[in-house]
């Protein structure tokens, strides 16, 4: 092991902090900070929605992304789309046909990697709301620093690769990136993120076990 041991290095994910049921009026809500980035997500549903957007097969997901200040932009629509597609895969929508589930995301602090924090926070809020899920998901961001090394968290890096994994097979559900990078970097980053997603899942598990022990 000796030589190999040298190659191993400790990587740290940014410290995570979360509180469930932060808002009293929503069916489920969570506030999550990853490092300095903070997101607040509320989930309402399943509730009745207007008949034009109802689907007879599954519940309709409505995602609203609110930036901190200023007007809504095209980038917000893009983020909504990423979150909608990811959550649609995770929520067992066929249990609630003709209903709507509203997920509202409020940006509180953005020091990079906000979308990844928002995705994790949305997952916690969904857990809190009691909506049936197929699986939970975790988003991890990797950055490539000036030396060409892949680092977890990736704060301050120009190139960032974010991956979302499901909790069952740890396969890739969603992936988005910034900057340019080589093929090898990409594959390495995905493998890294997959390994690190275990930590996020362990975090989810600890959050749930903390209150379910008390119940």
């Amino acid at each position, binding site marked *: 092991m000796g030589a190999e041991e040298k190659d191993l290095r400790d*990587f740290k994910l940014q410290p995570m*902090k979360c509180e469930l049921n932060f*808002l009293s*009026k929503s069916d489920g809500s969570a506030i999550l900070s990853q490092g300095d980035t903070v997101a607040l997500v509320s989930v309402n*549903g399943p509730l009745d929605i207007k008949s034009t957007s109802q689907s007879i097969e599954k519940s309709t997901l409505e995602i609203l992304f609110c930036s901190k200040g200023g007007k809504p932009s095209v980038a917000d629509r893009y983020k909504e789309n990423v979150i909608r597609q990811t959550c649609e895969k995770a929520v067992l929508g066929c249990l609630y046909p003709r209903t709507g589930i509203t997920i*509202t995301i409020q940006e509180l602090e953005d020091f990079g990697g906000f979308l990844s924090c928002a995705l994790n926070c949305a997952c916690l809020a969904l857990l809190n709301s009691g909506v049936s899920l197929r699986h939970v998901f975790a988003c991890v961001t990797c950055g490539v620093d000036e030396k060409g*090394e892949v680092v977890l968290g990736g704060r301050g890096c120009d190139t960032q690769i974010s991956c979302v994994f499901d909790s069952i097979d740890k396969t890739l559900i969603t992936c988005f990136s910034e900057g340019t990078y080589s093929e090898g970097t990409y594959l390495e980053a995905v493998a890294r993120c997959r390994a*690190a997603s275990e930590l996020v899942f362990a975090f989810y598990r600890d959050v749930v076990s903390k209150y379910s022990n008390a119940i």
Partner: protein
Amino acid sequence: MRDVFLSNCEKNFIQKIVSEGHVSKNENVYFYKVFVIYLIIFFFNIFQRLDGRNYNESRRLDISFGSEYGSCVVSLGETKVLAQVSCEVTQPKQIRPNEGILYINVEISPMAAPQFEANRQTDLTVYLNRLLEKCYKDSKCIDLESLCIVVEEKVWSLRVDIKILNHAGNLIECASIATLTSLAHFKRPDVTRSGDSVIIHTIAEKDPIPTVLYHYPVCVTFAIFGNDILLSDPSFTEESVCTSSTEEGINTAGGLLVIGMNQYKELCLLDLTGAALYNSNIVHKAIINAADRSKTIVDLVKKNIVSDDTSRQKRVKINFSDIITEDHLLSLSQKDLSIRLKTYNVDDMRTKHENMDEDEDIDVKPEPSKYDGNEVFFILLLAVARDFARVDYYLSILQELCIFPG
């Protein structure tokens, strides 16, 4: 989702609680000096309102700041509001060429309560927006002339974005405190004029300038019951009961009275919704109450801003993550999420591209399962006992976390 209306039964119940509390309140004055009786009545009186507050008692007010200047979350009990001030350089209005622009925007998303729809203006949004404009724009508390850079060409325009996070009653007071705090906390970047061009300095280059506020107005809300009872800081149910009329109610006249007042006890806004008042004494009483309340609020806001400023000068990192309580049952914080992975360099990688697959020997320490079978079963049993409807939810969580096979 449509609004959930209160039933007549609920309305009458709330009104009864409030009016009965009122009867003993009169007795309270009568026996005021008799200490023993006072104590007894005090214990009777302690539940004057459904949530256990006195008529004059407000909920707990908390202010926390974000990392940027001019961003804060204000919570009044469970009601939570986020305010963010931003600024940009624009052309001034033609009728006021030497004044900056203040713009207030209120947004209520489905996050506040499920009955609100996304991207749609409701009557409440318009009402809130107008009240805040009256209180902060029309009372001329901000020195708009100091926001001017070049007359008729360039002025600062301040934009206050108010986002309602949780609607549990008394939005007006909470939103107005948030607006005031964020405006008083905000600092805009410094500018220098050299000839025709204007240079905007970043915060690192030059210290930013705070906004000048002549006075600190704040809106205080009272719910009026039966034309003679004043409740300060009404909760969501109290608000909806006092503005609605009951057919066979105990006392029908009631409404919401909003009083805008600054720290010098000067009135700058009065607004009444609901039924007409036939007793002007109550307004007078409310104004006296509001004077005290606004003074305490403004003092608290000022104190918070000063303490925030000193900690910023000491280079303490201030961030919204501080509003997450850590010792709560439903919260968790983890500082050392570490994982051991192989160090990797892109340049090395290019040379040994082929044997990529073997490279990923990742060393994750296996997490010992925190539950054994019995414990899981026990939790489930408890869950069944507590909340029958949610059993499938607990089951699904456990299944998802792969703790409970099958």
